[in-house]
């Protein structure tokens, strides 16, 4: 069991990163720390994808010296998925940061619980 875990250390690291990020995003009250948690969570998933696509002893999927045999290269699809995932993650981070700035300007705090209490006292129509 322990040996299997050591053999798959990349996957283990990915799962641990995902768990750290997920719990930070879920339980932390500070908005910036939540965002950091989200990025750690995404990094965990990307590491899992990258480790999945890597095959020891093979090269990046760029044809060299006319070698066209697929067994010479690693699978390029996971790398493509990681790139797409990074683009999505950056966009989401940008939106969340802009929302955080807007909330901070209004309530002068980054604590989500405090913001919730302050917003409850506001009188707003409909």
């Amino acid at each position, binding site marked *: 069991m322990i040996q299997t875990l050591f053999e798959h250390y990349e996957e283990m690291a990915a799962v641990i990163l*995902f768990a750290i*990020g*997920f719990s930070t*995003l*879920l339980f932390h009250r500070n*908005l910036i720390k*939540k965002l950091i948690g*989200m990025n750690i*969570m*995404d990094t*965990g*998933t990307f590491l*899992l*994808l990258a480790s*999945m696509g890597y095959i020891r002893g093979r090269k990046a999927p760029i044809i060299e010296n006319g070698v066209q045999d697929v067994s010479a290269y690693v699978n390029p*699809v*996971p790398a493509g*998925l990681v790139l*797409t*995932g990074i683009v*999505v993650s950056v*966009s*989401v981070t940008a*939106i*969340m940061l802009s*929302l*955080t700035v*807007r*909330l901070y300007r*209004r*309530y002068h705090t980054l604590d*989500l619980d405090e*913001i*919730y209490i*302050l*917003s409850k006292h*506001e009188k*707003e*129509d*409909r």
Partner: protein
Amino acid sequence: MSVVWNFPLFTVVFSLFSGVLCMMLSPRAARNYTIAYESVLIVMVGCVLRCTYVTGEAFTYPMGEFPAPWGNEIRAGTLEALIAFLFLVIMLCSIIGGYHFLRQDIDESKQNLYFTLLNLMTAALMAITWTNDVFTGYVFLEILTLTSCGVLIVREIGRTTLAAVRYMILNLLGSGLFLLGLVLLYDISGHLLMVPMRESLAQLAEDPAAIPAISLSVGILTIGLGIKSGMFPFHFWMPDTYGWATPTSASVLSSLVSKAYVFLLFKIYIRAIGLEVLQKTPLLHLLMAVGILGMIIGSVSALRASTINQMVAFSSAAQVGYIYMGIGLGTAAGFAAAMFQILAHALTKSLLFLTTPYLAEVSGDSLKFSALQGSGHRDHLAGVYFTIGALSMIGIPIFAGFSAKLMFSQAAVLSSRPSRTTMVLLVMSALAVSSLLNGVYFVRTLIRIYSGQDEDSGKDAKGKGRSRYGYVGAGLVLIAGNIFLGLFSWMIADLIYQGLWMFT
């Protein structure tokens, strides 16, 4: 290749293009353009629906250079076309019906950007509906999340920003889990296209040792989409999100966005995993349990709500529970009932969310029940629309809600799964209790909006006297759709069964 085969791709590409175009138009031009192009999309998707129904065959549209199983694909069958048609009709009705409040809630200089967001949302909805590739589903799912957040914060008050942040946090958790589940499924099966993935998983599932890994991957993916769609116990973001958004946003978020997540899960279950593999996992039982709990607890929360929008939002949580219960039945009839519920609920909820602000407008701009006393007399049309929506939600015959509940009961009775008796008892009891609770809180609200006299002239609306043709027309279309679903449910059920057959 028929020209109709290009239409699904056009719906995505046109919407993306329209999103960019609206940034450069004036607010009025952006609105008119969006209405016109949404109408064109409805005609296109109507053609796809007719084509697939008449021929009885789905078609696949390869994207890019590489064929399956490596390339990307769009696929159109009766079920996808039916859902896309409904999404577009509701989007159009929400834009037209909520425009009166949209002008009040959004700064004029930003109104064209709101239409940009709606167009990008349409692109994401269409892509999720048509795609045959799970990773493409993930990318457009994130676009849907971002645009949903955008249409929420566009009403610049503190509560909407807070609601948007909470909505985003929950959605990001959901997206993260969905991506992880998807990556694990890819790891196990080696495919991202739905059909090759199903074939690979079917082979793997012959070995009982592979079932825990498949269950874990699909379970993580299900929780991810469950969080995003408001499945119990992840439904607590709904009241703030739907309650503080501008009516058009509340309508599209509750009727389209949450349903798109469920539809994606539905597609993945049937097309990418397969019913036979799913039945070997404990997931269907779990889904049924959370569905039933959602039906009851969502309704109890709605009973305790202090504003009408909170009540309607919690009622959405209960209605999403119905859908998961139907999927949890794990039979074709259960899936068909869940699909019918998606249609019925989308039509009814959009009508209710477009109507409640009109009741509030004649009640001192307050959504609190205490202020809404007699509002049905002060605004007769909104009162009638709300009554029709409420009757459908309760499940009164001739309305869509009744047919949906009937289909759930039939699905439970016709089930041939091992624990059939327990299942029938559970489903019937849950339907009875949930319908009773629906009845209590909706009838209580109806009594409240129709009790008291029309004496409080101080509660006159700010916008009274303005043209409401858009709201009247949108409401009539939604009601007509609701009654059509109620009276001709067999016709829609026929379409759904044909679509399900094409799925497999």
